[in-house]
């Protein structure tokens, strides 16, 4: 029975992968026609990497870092500096000239991404030593501060010849094809999933559940917190590098605190402690940002100018959304559950009964306890 279920799931997964590959091949072939959709999907995939890395820390280790934008900035600038073709550098740095130290530094994008991750991880290690050893409460504020400083330093005139100051960096080579554009984020997420399901992932969860008990199990608090923070920052840095490759031109304003908040919204909306949730969340939020663009434009219905609709309204909606999720829907979309084919099957099968239940509940306003049934459902799933 059990083996049967496993191989069935493998089959489903393979089929799903195949569908995705065919879809990507289709988009690749028609990339000109679907460029807008592709760019949304690519951005979502990159945000998913950063969101999962934030979740690794927040949802699985119980630490709270708000340095995503800063670590992404480090990653993005590293990748940009290392991959802009040497020939076009003169035109990129035409205002201030390029520092001789980096003028001829060049490497392939995959190596640049790894270096980007390592640099971000190294900075995280430095921040982590004082903060995580003593009061992880302050991690949020320390990382938020560092993130702002990194942005300020990047824009600082003293570094003009490296970061090109407020002009930003342009002419970053993009992804060679869609398979790489989606394959790399997928690889990053896969690595993080493997980590979370490994012995180390269990150690992180133990830390989240109870620090004192985790120590009594032989886990060194500082070492494991630092490890989680470094790994999370590594992938955040890689995510920043991917963003640079995706955007092809970056400047320090890209990495403002709002970027961190976007990622936070994704994680909270998807469910703190759910990788699947973070991935779904990043696609929803990124696509949502595009769909909700109309909030920023004046809306005229039949000659009547609807009030409120003007520049900035969309961000207000976004922040209210974040607040609503935190206050009323704390578990987010997925809670701390992960995707499984059984879960999906259960969800689909439960739709008719849910609709029925809803109409019943409306007929009986006193309400029928919904829990026993849904608990039965989950039991069935466990046995399968």
């Amino acid at each position, binding site marked *: 029975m059990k083996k049967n279920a496993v191989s069935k799931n493998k089959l489903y997964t393979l089929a799903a992968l195949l569908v995705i590959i065919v879809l990507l091949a289709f988009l690749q072939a028609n990339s000109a026609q679907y460029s807008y959709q592709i760019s949304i999907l690519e951005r979502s995939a990159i945000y998913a990497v950063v969101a999962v890395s934030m979740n690794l820390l927040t949802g699985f280790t119980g630490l709270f870092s708000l340095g995503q934008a800063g670590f992404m900035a480090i990653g993005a600038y590293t990748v940009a500096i290392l991959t802009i073709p040497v020939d076009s550098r003169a035109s990129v740095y035409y205002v201030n000239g390029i520092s001789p130290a980096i003028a001829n530094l060049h490497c392939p994008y995959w190596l640049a991404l790894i270096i980007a991750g390592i640099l971000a991880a190294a900075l995280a290690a430095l921040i982590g030593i004082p903060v995580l050893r003593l009061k992880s409460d302050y991690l949020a504020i320390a990382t938020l501060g560092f993130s702002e400083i990194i942005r300020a330093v990047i824009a600082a005139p003293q570094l003009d010849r490296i970061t090109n100051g407020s002009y930003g960096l342009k002419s970053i080579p993009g992804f060679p094809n869609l398979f790489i554009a989606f394959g790399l984020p997928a690889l990053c997420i896969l690595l993080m999933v493997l*980590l979370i399901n490994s*012995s180390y992932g269990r150690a992180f969860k133990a830390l989240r*559940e*109870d620090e004192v008990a985790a120590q*009594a199990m032989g886990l060194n608090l500082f070492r494991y917190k630092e490890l989680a923070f470094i790994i999370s920052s590594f992938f955040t840095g890689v995510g920043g590098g991917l963003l640079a490759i995706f955007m092809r031109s970056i400047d320090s304003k890209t990495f403002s605190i709002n970027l961190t908040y976007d990622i936070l919204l994704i994680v909270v909306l998807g469910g703190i402690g759910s990788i699947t949730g973070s991935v779904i969340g990043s696609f929803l939020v990124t696509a949502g940002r595009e769909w909700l663009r109309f909030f920023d434009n004046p809306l005229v219905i039949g000659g009547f100018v609807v009030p409120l609709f003007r520049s900035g309204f969309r961000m207000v909606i976004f922040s209210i959304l974040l607040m609503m999720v935190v206050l009323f829907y704390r578990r987010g979309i997925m809670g701390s559950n992960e995707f499984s084919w059984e879960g999906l099957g259960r969800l689909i099968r439960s739709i008719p009964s849910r609709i029925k239940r809803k109409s019943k509940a409306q007929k009986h306003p006193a309400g029928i306890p919904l829990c026993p049934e849904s608990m039965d459902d989950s039991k069935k799933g466990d046995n399968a």
Partner: protein
Amino acid sequence: MSNIAKTPINVLHMQDITMQFGGVVAVNGLTLDVNQGEIVALIGPNGAGKTTAFNCVTGIYEPTFGQVDFMGETILSNTPKGKMKKTYLGEVSPRPIPIISSTPDVITKKGIARTFQNIRLFGQLTVFDNVLIAKHMRAKQNVFSATLRLNRKEEERMRAETTALLEEQNLLHLKDEIATSLPYGLQRRLEIARALATEPKFLLLDEPAAGMNPQETQELTDFIKQIRDSYHLTVFMIEHHMDLVMQISDRIYVLDFGKLIAHGTPEDIQNNERVIEAYLGVSDDAED
């Protein structure tokens, strides 16, 4: 109770342990020994400093003054420094001794395991994972080999050992339950199982019978003896249930207001005037 071998091997030696919080001396010059294979109880009225003494052994607190030896090796030793020099209130006058500090995880690795007065399980994780986590520290792996699944053998060994342990503890049928969903008694059992999974030589139990009825307490008495024998443990426990303490202990230490007021076999303690005055005078039931 026949385990006191010819020449007892010292497992735990606490020398002049003093723990001061602000102006309160929670443990005051405590000196005691636990020998291999023994079951030793630490008793005393509420607030006597028993749990604090445990926390000093397991590295959760750094004692203000004193020394802790485990299997002949000094694992903790401290002497008042800085401002504490002036405000020190302990009975034993401090002398300069080398400062050795160990974090709780290091102490666990050396072979001391403990349970907690108010159960501390990894609440949202399954019974199986709770025990499996204890196996992590002794596994030969690193974060890369674990992530890339190059540690298959180790992982399988850890899982097999966990399964075996749960089987021995009659918890295997519950392995997929979430820890907090277990009834109270089973949570205590799970906590002990988890402590055993760290492969200890020395087990500290902080009120293992708290909240148990007489029958459960009786079962626990047999259980503690049984694990002592089958895992070759030395047991040091804090307990309020006098029946259990008197039945099971080879020796008893009595603490009151942070100070040791008596020490001896259960018979000695039962007849000790000071103990009766400080502790047994209070009816057993009133304790809970």
